[in-house]
C-alpha cells in the first residue's frame, strides 16, 4: 500500500531545496535591514570603568549605539535562568549588555546598529571601553580553590552542589559497598571542552509594524514559541502581537535551545525603537567566544566489584566546569550523574557533583548533553574492572546488564525532567551479541596478532549507553485537510536539519491514508502553532511525532463520520486509501478526502466548483439540525497533544578498531560499528543519517575538537582553522545494525535518535587506543602529540 509509509526509508524531502541553495536561512532574509554588531569584551574578567563611544559617531551610516545604561526596564534585567533547581543555590545569568563586570572574553558590552554590517563593525572598532582588570579564573582546578571568584557573591565559585544516592538492595550506602567489595579501584578521568559549532551561527532579524504595533522576529533558534514568550515579556508586548519564526536553521546541536540570547532581546527592541528592520547574524568568531560550550568535567571514581566484575558499589564525584553563567540551569551535570549508569544494574551508587564557575564561555547542553561524560566514566570503569580481573571486556559488561525481563527498571534516581529514572524497555544482552557479531569481537585477537607481526598496532574498544529521550512536558500537532485534498501538518517545535518534513509527513500520511506528496509540514512557526517546548533531548519524533499521529487520528475519525453520512454507510466499514474513503469491499462506494473536506465546512458562498457542493442550496439537508452540529467544528482538521508520563529510554552500543602509528602516533579508525535501539523506526534511512552525524561529532570530540583557553581566559583557537572539526576525510564508514524494542509509553512506540550517535564515541576510542597501546587513557580528546607524550611518560 502506497500510503503505509511508517517505517519506510523515504528519501528526505527537504534535501533538494537545502542542497541546491534554495534554503532560507536567517541571513538570507532581511536584505535591507539595518545591521547590528557588538563590542565584546576582550578580557576574561574585568570591571568596566567607562565607555567612550565618540569615535563611532564619526562613522557615516551609523544609526545607533547602545550600552547597558540605555536599556529600558525589562530589557536591561539579567537574562532569565531558564531551568531553576533547588540545588542551584547560586545561579547567575548575564545582562544582555554587560552592566559593570565582564566575566568572559566575548561577553557583549555595546550594541551598534548601522546601515550594514561593515559599517557596524567599523563603528564597533572605534568604541573604547576602559577596563579595570580582575583576576581571571580559568580551569576547574583553579576555580575549586576559590581563591579568586568569578561572581563576588558566589563563595568557592560553586553554583550548585547535588548528591544523589541509591543504596544497595541490602541497604548499604555506596561508599560502604565499595569498601566492603572484594576489589576496589580508584581513579580520575578528564574530559575537555568542546561545543555544538553548528555551521550556521545564531542570528536574529526583527520587523516592527508600527501601524498595528506588532512584531515579527526570525531567529535561528531551537525554540520559537519560547523565544516568543520571552520577547513579549521582555518588551512588554501582548503575546498575540508577537510572532516568532525559525526559518531554515543550519544546525543547532543544543546551543540554540538556550534563549533568549542577548541578541534575541536587543535586536527586536532596537527594531521597535528605531522603527526599522534590524538584523544580526553571528559570525564564526562571535560564535566561538560568545555562545556556549560543553563537556568539560573532572571525575573522581571509586568502584568496588566482585570476582565476576559485578559492580557492588560506585562512588563518583564530578567537578563540572559551568563557565561564567548558568542560564540553562544544571541540566548537563544532572544528566551526566543520572545517565552514567547506562544499561547496568549497579549494587549501590552515589554521585555528587559541583557546578563550578570559571571566566569562560557559559556551558549549556551540546548534543549528548552530559551523557558522553557519564558514558566515558562508566565505560572506562568497566574496562578497568576487566583489566584488573583479566576478564574479557564484554563479559564484564554482560555480568552487569539489566536483563530484558526486568523492565520497567527503576534506577532510583531523579532525571533531568524531575521525574523518576525508569527505563521503559530494552534488550541489552541482544544488543551486545549483535555488536560482537558486527565488529567481529571474538576474532579480533588473531587479527591483532597478525598485524603485530607486521609491526602494526591495532586495538579494539566498545562502549554502551542508555539515553533518556523524549522528555516532556508536551508537544502538539495540527493536521488540516483542505478542499483540494492537501494535508497541512504543523507542530510548534523547530527543525535544524533532522528531516522533520519527511518523518512527520510519513506519520500523517500513514495515519490518514494519503500519498506523501499531498502532505506538507511546517515547524517552528508560531503563526501556525503557538504551543510548544522546542527541539532538544532527542524529543521531536517522540513528542511531535506522537502528537501529529494523535491529531491525524482525530481528523481520520471526523473524515469517516462525514463520509459515512455521505455514503450512507457505517463508519466502521470505511477505510481510507490513497486519499479516498471507501466502503471496504465495495469499490463503487467512495468519496475523496477533498470532497469530505468540502462537506466538513458548510458554506454560503461558492468560490469554486468544489465549494458549490457545500453551499446551502446544493443538496438535501435536515432542516431540523444546524449546519454545524453541537460539539462539531467546521473544517476537516484536528489538533492534539502528547504529554508523556516520563522519558523513554533508547540505548545502543558502539565498537571501533583503531590503528596507531608506532612512529608518528597518528590514530586511525579502521572500523566503526553501531548497534542502535530507538524503538520503532519511523524512517531507517533518517535514523542512520542521525547516527552517522552523531558518530562524526563524536569522533570530533574524541580525536580533534577542544576549546583551548590560556591562563588569561583567552580562547586560543576561536576559528575553524585551529578548532579542528573533522572533515569527511576523518570520519570512518559507520556500520550499523538496528534493534527495535518498542516503547510502551507512547502510541507510536518510538524513542529518540538524534543525539545517540555522539554519546559513546570518546569512550569507544579511548578503549581502542588503550588496547592498541597498552597505555591507560584517562582523558579525552587525545591527539597524536598527546599519545606521543603518553608513550614517553609510560616508557620503562
Amino acid at each position, binding site marked *: 500500500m502506497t500510503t503505509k509509509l511508517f517505517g519506510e526509508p523515504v528519501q528526505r524531502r527537504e534535501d533538494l531545496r537545502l542542497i541546491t541553495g534554495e534554503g532560507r536561512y536567517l541571513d538570507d532574509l532581511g536584505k535591507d535591514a539595518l545591521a547590528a554588531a557588538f563590542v565584546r569584551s576582550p578580557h576574561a574578567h574585568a570591571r568596566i570603568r567607562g565607555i567612550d563611544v565618540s569615535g563611532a559617531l564619526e562613522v557615516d551610516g551609523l544609526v545607533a549605539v547602545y550600552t547597558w545604561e540605555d536599556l529600558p526596564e525589562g530589557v536591561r534585567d539579567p537574562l532569565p535562568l531558564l531551568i531553576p533547581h533547588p540545588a542551584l543555590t547560586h545561579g547567575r545569568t548575564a545582562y544582555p549588555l554587560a552592566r559593570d563586570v565582564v566575566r568572559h572574553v566575548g561577553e557583549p558590552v555595546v550594541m551598534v546598529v548601522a546601515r550594514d554590517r*561593515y559599517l557596524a563593525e567599523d563603528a564597533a572598532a572605534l568604541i573604547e571601553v576602559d577596563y579595570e582588570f580582575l583576576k581571571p579564573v580559568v580551569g576547574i582546578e583553579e576555580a575549586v580553590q576559590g581563591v579568586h571568584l568569578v561572581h563576588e557573591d558566589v563563595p568557592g565559585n560553586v553554583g550548585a552542589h547535588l548528591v544523589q544516592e541509591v543504596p544497595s538492595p541490602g541497604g548499604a550506602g555506596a561508599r560502604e559497598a565499595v569498601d566492603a567489595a572484594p576489589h576496589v579501584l580508584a581513579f580520575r578521568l578528564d574530559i575537555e571542552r568542546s561545543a555544538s559549532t553548528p555551521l550556521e551561527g545564531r542570528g536574529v532579524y526583527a520587523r516592527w509594524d508600527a501601524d498595528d504595533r506588532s512584531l515579527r522576529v526570525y531567529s535561528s533558534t531551537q525554540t520559537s514559541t519560547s523565544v516568543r514568550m520571552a520577547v513579549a515579556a521582555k518588551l512588554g508586548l501582548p503575546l498575540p502581537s508577537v510572532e516568532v519564526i525559525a526559518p531554515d536553521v543550519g544546525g543547532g546541536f543544543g546551543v540554540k535551545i538556550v534563549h533568549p540570547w542577548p541578541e534575541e532581546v536587543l535586536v527586536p527592541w532596537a527594531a521597535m525603537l528605531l522603527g526599522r528592520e534590524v538584523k544580526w547574524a553571528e559570525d564564526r568568531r562571535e560564535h566561538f567566544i560568545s555562545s556556549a560550550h560543553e563537556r568539560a568535567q573532572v571525575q573522581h571514581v571509586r568502584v568496588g566489584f566482585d570476582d565476576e566484575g559485578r559492580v557492588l558499589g560506585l562512588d563518583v564525584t564530578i567537578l563540572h566546569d559551568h563557565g561564567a553563567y548558568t542560564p540553562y540551569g544544571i541540566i548537563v551535570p544532572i544528566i551526566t550523574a543520572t545517565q552514567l549508569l547506562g544499561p547496568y544494574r549497579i549494587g549501590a551508587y552515589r554521585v555528587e557533583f559541583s557546578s563550578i564557575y570559571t571566566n569562560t564561555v557559559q556551558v549549556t547542553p551540546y548534543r549528548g548533553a552530559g551523557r558522553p561524560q557519564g558514558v566515558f566514566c562508566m565505560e572506562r570503569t568497566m574496562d578497568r574492572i576487566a583489566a584488573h580481573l583479566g576478564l574479557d571486556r564484554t563479559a564484564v559488561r554482560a555480568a552487569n546488564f539489566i536483563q530484558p525481563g526486568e523492565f520497567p527498571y527503576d534506577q532510583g534516581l531523579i532525571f533531568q525532567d524531575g521525574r523518576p529514572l525508569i527505563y521503559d524497555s530494552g534488550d541489552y544482552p541482544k544488543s551486545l551479541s549483535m555488536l560482537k557479531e558486527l565488529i567481529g569481537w571474538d576474532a579480533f585477537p588473531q587479527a591483532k596478532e597478525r598485524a603485530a607481526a607486521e609491526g602494526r598496532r591495532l586495538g579494539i574498544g566498545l562502549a554502551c549507553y542508555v539515553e533518556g529521550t523524549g522528555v516532556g512536558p508536551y508537544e502538539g500537532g495540527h493536521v488540516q485537510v483542505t478542499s483540494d485534498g492537501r494535508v497541512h501538518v504543523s507542530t510548534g517545535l523547530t527543525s535544524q536539519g533532522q528531516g522533520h518534513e519527511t518523518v512527520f509527513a510519513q506519520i500523517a500520511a500513514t495515519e490518514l491514508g494519503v500519498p506523501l506528496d499531498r502532505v506538507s509540514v511546517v515547524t517552528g512557526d508560531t503563526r501556525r502553532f503557538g504551543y510548544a517546548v522546542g527541539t532538544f533531548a532527542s524529543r521531536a519524533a517522540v513528542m511531535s511525532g506522537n502528537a501529529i499521529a494523535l491529531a491525524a487520528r482525530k481528523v481520520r475519525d471526523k473524515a469517516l463520520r462525514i463520509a459515512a453520512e455521505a455514503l450512507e454507510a457505517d463508519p466502521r466499514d470505511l477505510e481510507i486509501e490513497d486519499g479516498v474513503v471507501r466502503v471496504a469491499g465495495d469499490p463503487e462506494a467512495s468519496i475523496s478526502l477533498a470532497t469530505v473536506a468540502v462537506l466538513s465546512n458548510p458554506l454560503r458562498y461558492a468560490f469554486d466548483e468544489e465549494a458549490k457542493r457545500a453551499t446551502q442550496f446544493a443538496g438535501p439537508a435536515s432542516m431540523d439540525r444546524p449546519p454545524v452540529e453541537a460539539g462539531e467544528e467546521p473544517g476537516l482538521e484536528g489538533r492534539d497533544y502528547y504529554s508523556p508520563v516520563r522519558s523513554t529510554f533508547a540505548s545502543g552500543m558502539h565498537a571501533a578498531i583503531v590503528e596507531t602509528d608506532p612512529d608518528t602516533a597518528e590514530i586511525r579508525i579502521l572500523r566503526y560499528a553501531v548497534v542502535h535501539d530507538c524503538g520503532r523506526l519511523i524512517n531507517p534511512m533518517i535514523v542512520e543519517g542521525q547516527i552517522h552525524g552523531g558518530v562524526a561529532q563524536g569522533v570530533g570530540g574524541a580525536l580533534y575538537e577542544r576549546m583551548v583557553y590560556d591562563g588569561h581566559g583567552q580562547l*586560543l583557537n576561536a576559528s575553524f582553522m585551529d578548532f579542528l572539526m573533522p572533515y569527511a*576525510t576523518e570520519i570512518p564508514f559507520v556500520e550499523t545494525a538496528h534493534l527495535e524494542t518498542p516503547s510502551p509509553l507512547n502510541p507510536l512506540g518510538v524513542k529518540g535518535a538524534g543525539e545517540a550517535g555522539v554519546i559513546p564515541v570518546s569512550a569507544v576510542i579511548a578503549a581502542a587506543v588503550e588496547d592498541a597501546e597498552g597505555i591507560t587513557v584517562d582523558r579525552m580528546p587525545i591527539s597524536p602529540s598527546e599519545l606521543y607524550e603518553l608513550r614517553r611518560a609510560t616508557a620503562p
Partner: protein
Amino acid sequence: MKPSAFDYHAPRDVGEALEILAATAPHGKVLAGGQSLIPLLNMRLAAPAHLVDINRVPELDTIEAGGAGVRVGALARHAAVERSDSAARAQPLLRTALRHVAHPVIRNRGTVVGSLVHADPSAEMPAVLVVLGGSVRLARHGGGERDVPAADFFTGPMESAAEPGELAVSAFFPALTPRTGTAFAEVARRHGDYAVAGVAAVVSLDDDLRIRSARVACVSVGPRPAPLDVTEECGGRPAATVDWPSVARAVSLRVDPGDDIHATAGYRRHLTGVLAERALRVAAGEAADG
C-alpha cells in the same frame, strides 16, 4: 568578520599593477588567490588601505617548464601547477608537494607564488622552494626585476624579502638533475590542514650510486623553512647502507620547533625525524631509479 574599508584596484597588466603598488606603497597589498589574505581581512588582522587585485593580469598566469626548471607566474593556481605534466616532468616534487596543500577547492583558487610571498613556515611550497634552491622574481615600478634566492627570500614567519611596492611576478623551481630523487612527507591533524611537521627532501647520487648530496627543508618547525644539508651524515655511502635513522636524528636535532595548541615541541622534533627518514629513503630510492 567584515573587512575594514579599502580602495580596490584591478590593473590589466603588470605595468599598471606596479604603478599602483608604487603609488600606494607601503599601504598596498596584492590580492591573487586570496586564500590567506581574505580571511585575514575579514578578521581584521590585516587592514591594507589599498588592495591590488592581479586576477585580471593574464601575463602572470603562466607555467613555463624547460630544461632548467619550472617558472611559475604569480597567477598560476596550485591546481594548474599540480596538473601540469610538463612541470611534473621537469620537477616532480612540485606535484608531490602540491597534493599536500590544503584541499582541491583551495588549490583551485590559491596560487603558488601567493603561498611563497605569504611565507607561512607551516606551508609546503616555501619548503619546496628552499630545498630545491629556487628563487622568487620581484618587480618594481621603474626599477626592473630582481631574483631573490629562496634561502634569502624567507626572512621570518609571514615575512619575506618582498618590499613595499614590489610585486612577486614569478617563482623558479630548478629542474630535477640526473640521479636525483625528491620526496615530500608530512603529518597534518586533518586531511589538508597545515602540517604539524613536514619534510621535503632531495637526494643526489654519484656515478657509483653513492650519496653525493642530501638536503631537506622542514615545515612547521621554525620561523622559516631553512635548508638543511645532511650530505655529510650520509657518509658518501650507497643509499642501501646509509644509517638513515641517524641521519634523521641529525635533522631532528637541527630544527627549532615550538609548542603550540596542536603539538608539543618534543613531538614536532620527533615527528620531523620520522618524516625526514621516510622522505630521505624515498628520495634516495627515486634517485637510484632515475
